[in-house]
């Protein structure tokens, strides 16, 4: 059961493949998935996309012991990945709701998984291209956060770096929640309001109110991968999954499953993997 809980991160910026090397890495993917990598105009985006997909396959191989070539990952209409052959895996009884989520931004691609609880993840890098000061940068996003959230963000100041850090923390939390539930498009951001329970705005745990109601079973774990990257892992009850997610092979187990014990388990730290480990089709040794 514990093996189903994973938190991995890969630093993409350390990987500088030649065009030839990159093409051969793309061939590790099933043919139908390759266009999802090459469609990106920017090579850095292609790298992130490829490693994102390979990371998913590596996770599934590691946790479920599936033959690498047999792994088929699809996406719900909203874009949440799920494992198509989950119903056949021998560890199904130990990992009834095995679900995972991936995110990439800046230098990192990250992946998280849970055997029972819903999980979502989002990584954010501070984009130093933008030279705007916080008050100007934040303008475009004013409707993304509630007044209370903005108050918390601004309380991190006046130092600009601190303001950006807090902004990204809130951004990650919202995205991670949306991705955990599998909502995809169409969620009104103002409905979800994040807060730190003990008032410590640099706490590594946060909670959410949805439509004003405190959701005690949802937890948001914040990790700093380095001084530029924040990651949030959202973890919650499977009953909150949306319709299309429930219809996925593992999702069929979602209804009626209680995971209170799993919800209270201590959060794991991220393990930093190398690109070489992700590119190998051999079983990961960690």
């Amino acid at each position, binding site marked *: 059961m514990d093996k189903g809980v994973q938190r991995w991160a890969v630093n993409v910026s350390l990987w500088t493949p030649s065009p030839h090397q990159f093409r051969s890495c793309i061939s590790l993917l099933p043919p139908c998935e390759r266009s999802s990598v090459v469609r990106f*105009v920017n090579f850095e985006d292609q790298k992130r996309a490829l490693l994102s997909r390979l990371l998913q396959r590596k996770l599934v191989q590691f946790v479920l012991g599936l033959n690498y070539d047999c792994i088929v990952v699809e996406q719900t209409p*909203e874009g949440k990945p799920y494992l198509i052959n989950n119903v056949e895996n021998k560890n199904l009884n130990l990992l009834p709701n095995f679900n995972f989520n991936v995110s990439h931004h800046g230098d990192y691609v990250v992946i998280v998984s849970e055997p029972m609880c819903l999980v979502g993840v*989002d990584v954010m890098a501070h984009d130093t291209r933008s030279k705007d000061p916080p008050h100007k940068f934040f303008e475009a996003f004013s409707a993304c956060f509630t007044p209370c959230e903005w108050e918390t963000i601004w309380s991190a100041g006046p130092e600009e770096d601190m303001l950006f850090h807090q902004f990204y923390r809130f951004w990650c939390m919202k*995205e991670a929640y949306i*991705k955990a539930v599998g909502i995809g498009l169409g969620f009104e951001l103002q409905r979800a309001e994040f807060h730190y329970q003990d008032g410590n705005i640099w706490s590594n745990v946060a909670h959410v109110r949805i439509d004003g109601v405190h959701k005690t079973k949802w937890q948001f774990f914040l990790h700093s991968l380095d001084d530029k990257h924040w990651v949030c892992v959202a973890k919650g009850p499977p009953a909150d999954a949306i319709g299309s997610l429930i219809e996925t092979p593992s999702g069929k187990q979602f209804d009626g499953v209680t995971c209170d014990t799993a919800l209270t388990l201590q959060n794991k730290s991220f393990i930093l993997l190398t690109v070489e480990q992700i590119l190998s089709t051999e079983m990961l040794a960690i």
Partner: protein
Amino acid sequence: MEALWVNSATAAKASSACVASPTVSRQLSVTPRFDGLKAFPMLKQRPTSVALVASRHHHPLRISAVANADTLEVVSTLIAEQLAIDVSQVQAESKFTDLGADSLDTVEIMMALEEKFDIQLGEDNAEQIVTVQHAADLIQEVVAAKEA
């Protein structure tokens, strides 16, 4: 990172009560909604949650006219600047995700387009945008409707 999409206007109401922040001088006409998983293009959407009470115009324009070259060029240039890519990489048929727009980029692009053309795009219209061409077409329609 997966991009964020923008939708109907409740922006002005959302941030007005925030005491600690400086006065916000510009507002996006569309309330951003996290897609969380995919950037635009919009997929077949699930029914949305109940929206906040807000004023928004409910007259989606059908994009029927093709934007002229000037509009397309302005839109492409703006997008290229936001994404820090060469404008030659921005084709009319380019999808925003493929250009590398993350969720922050999407919000900022929408705002920049509204400012540039002095328009409000609105939720229902914004949902139709898949490619750069669509964005330009929509903008031209909105501009034309405004001037009519």
